[in-house]
């Protein structure tokens, strides 16, 4: 556990790495939007633009062996948890080289080797499985933590309540990460939750709740470390409430008719986690451009990789139905 103690703050170089990762996610998502609009990507896609600091802050705080379960808005989590952009992009193109070998798609990204238990297209669907994974860790005495991502909208579904209740009752090493972007699709928080502060959801289970600014990657990192320590030490699960912002539509192509025109614009100006971190680090335009060029090249390469990937054979559809 010595390693745990050491990693409670981030050195400047770590922050620079975090920025790079966040920027990679941003550029990746922008590219996905572009390629979707160009008609190259099938399916139904949700980008995490604006929520990069949540994914990166949480995942950087994890130890080897810790696992995550993700949501429909899964790309950022997957990249932050270590899935190579090539494999992720290949998945979005439906290729065998994809992280789910073309069977999953945007909402079903898996990377078991790197601790991603899977993204879930059913809101709340992954939460009890995180409780169960943490239970397995506990029963086997392994010092691992299972982490669930979910959104504010997910706090309304019964699955959420049952999963958290069970986790607290059994004091399993789990962290439930609420990415509170104030929207569930077109539904603003005021139309889906009758409480001002979603941290209050944790009170129904007596679960320890921590809250921080989800646009500040350092805060997310530090608060996650605290949560992990609590969970790992056997004191039970933690509800980790991240205050974040959705800077794009709900899905790619969402005209956002339901959203006040200046809401996203205002948020982009004041709550963009990348701008915030760049300013905090005092990066010059040049330095930033350099970083940007670097990650942009990675994203371009990912598209190349994906396009050159192998299409599954039609009959491959009959594989993997059973073990």
């Amino acid at each position, binding site marked *: 556990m010595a390693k745990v103690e050491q990693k409670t703050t981030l050195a400047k170089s770590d922050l620079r790495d975090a920025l790079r990762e966040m920027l990679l996610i941003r550029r990746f998502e922008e590219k996905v939007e572009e390629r979707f609009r160009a008609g190259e990507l099938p*399916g139904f896609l949700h980008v995490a633009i604006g929520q990069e600091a949540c994914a990166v802050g949480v995942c950087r705080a994890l130890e080897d062996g810790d696992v995550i379960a993700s949501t429909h808005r899964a790309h950022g989590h997957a990249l932050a948890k270590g899935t190579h952009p090539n494999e992720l992009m290949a998945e979005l193109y439906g290729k065998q080289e994809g992280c789910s070998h*073309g069977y999953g798609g945007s909402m079903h990204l898996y990377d078991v080797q790197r601790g991603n238990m899977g993204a879930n297209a059913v809101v709340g669907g992954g939460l009890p499985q995180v409780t169960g994974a943490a239970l397995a860790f506990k029963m086997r005495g392994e010092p691992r933590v299972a982490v669930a991502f979910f959104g504010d909208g997910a706090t309304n*579904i019964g699955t959420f309540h049952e999963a958290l209740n069970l986790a607290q009752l059994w004091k399993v090493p789990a962290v439930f990460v609420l990415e509170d972007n104030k929207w569930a699709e077109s539904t603003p928080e005021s139309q889906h939750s009758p409480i001002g502060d979603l941290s209050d959801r944790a009170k129904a289970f007596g679960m320890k709740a921590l809250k921080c600014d989800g646009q500040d990657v350092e805060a997310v990192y530090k608060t996650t470390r605290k949560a992990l320590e609590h969970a790992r030490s056997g004191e039970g699960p933690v509800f980790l409430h991240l205050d974040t912002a959705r800077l794009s539509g709900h899905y790619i192509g969402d005209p956002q008719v339901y959203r006040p025109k200046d809401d996203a614009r205002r948020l982009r100006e004041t709550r963009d986690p990348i701008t915030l971190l760049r300013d905090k680090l005092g990066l010059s335009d040049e330095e930033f451009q350099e970083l940007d060029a670097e990650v942009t090249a990675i994203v371009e390469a990912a598209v190349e990789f994906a396009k050159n990937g192998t299409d599954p054979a039609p009959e491959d559809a009959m594989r993997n139905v059973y073990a």
Partner: protein
Amino acid sequence: MPELTYREAIRDALVRAMRQDDDVFVMGEDIAEMGGSMGVTQGMLAEFGPERVRNTPISEMALAGAAIGAALQGMRPVAEIMYEDFMTLAAEQIVNQAAKHRYMSGGQVSVPVVFRTQGGAGWSPGAQHAQQLEAWFVHIPGLKVVFASTPEDVRGLLWSSIYDDNPVVFFEHRTLYGIKGEVPEEIEPIPLGKARIHREGEDVTVIATGRLVHEALAAAAEAEREGVSVEVVDPRTLQPLDEEALVASVKKTNRAVVAHEAVTRMGFGAEVAAVLQYQAFDWLDAPIERVGAKFAPLPFAPVMESYVVPHAEDVLAAILRTVNKKV
């Protein structure tokens, strides 16, 4: 006659019912400002306001249950479950509650509620956003089950469903929302339990639902070029099932194909085949063919997805098998 899309036809039924009847209202996730994830309820918030175009949190179970409770008190709610896959979350309320209240109370109450939902593959949403689960609800006494395939049908059947005093599970198909068709100026209610013969034929009867009605019609046209005359029948209501019409058609053609997008195994086609082989045993000149999705979850990659779900060519192949023709 005006032309409406399938989507507009649904909306038309909802809007007209809400105009004439205060007890009718719609509820569901993102149905208000956004007009529904499929755009069905677009514009309705402006006309009817947030009380009657009621946005709900992501709570499939409670929204279904609240609709049932309101129906028990005399309202006629139309609840939307965004994807059929999420019917699994509302199943308790629909199956144990809505379907059984009237019965368990010995006839004291009725539950005039409609659960609208949709699904369907063909756009690579993956395994959790396109399942076809209509067979589940056909198995449950107390529910009526509708699956409409054309604008005219969807409007007339939704109308009848809203005014039926029983819970109705109303299936729509994702890839049909954009199709256009003529509809009568005034709504003509279509009675639940009446099949529709889309095309008459002599050699084979294809019984198809949802998207497969259109695939079947395409296959029938193709078969005709091969010299095979195909009758295409859409039961439209899966429960109560118009067994009479299906059996009559098969007694005429002596051959049957059942086609739907849902997984073949334990799909609705199994029930139809079981009914037909029983009631038309002596008339059948060939085994009843079933066309449905192969036995796999829906894969993401388009080539695989397309392989799993059935198309016109699969219906055609089945037609030709029944008449023992190779192409």
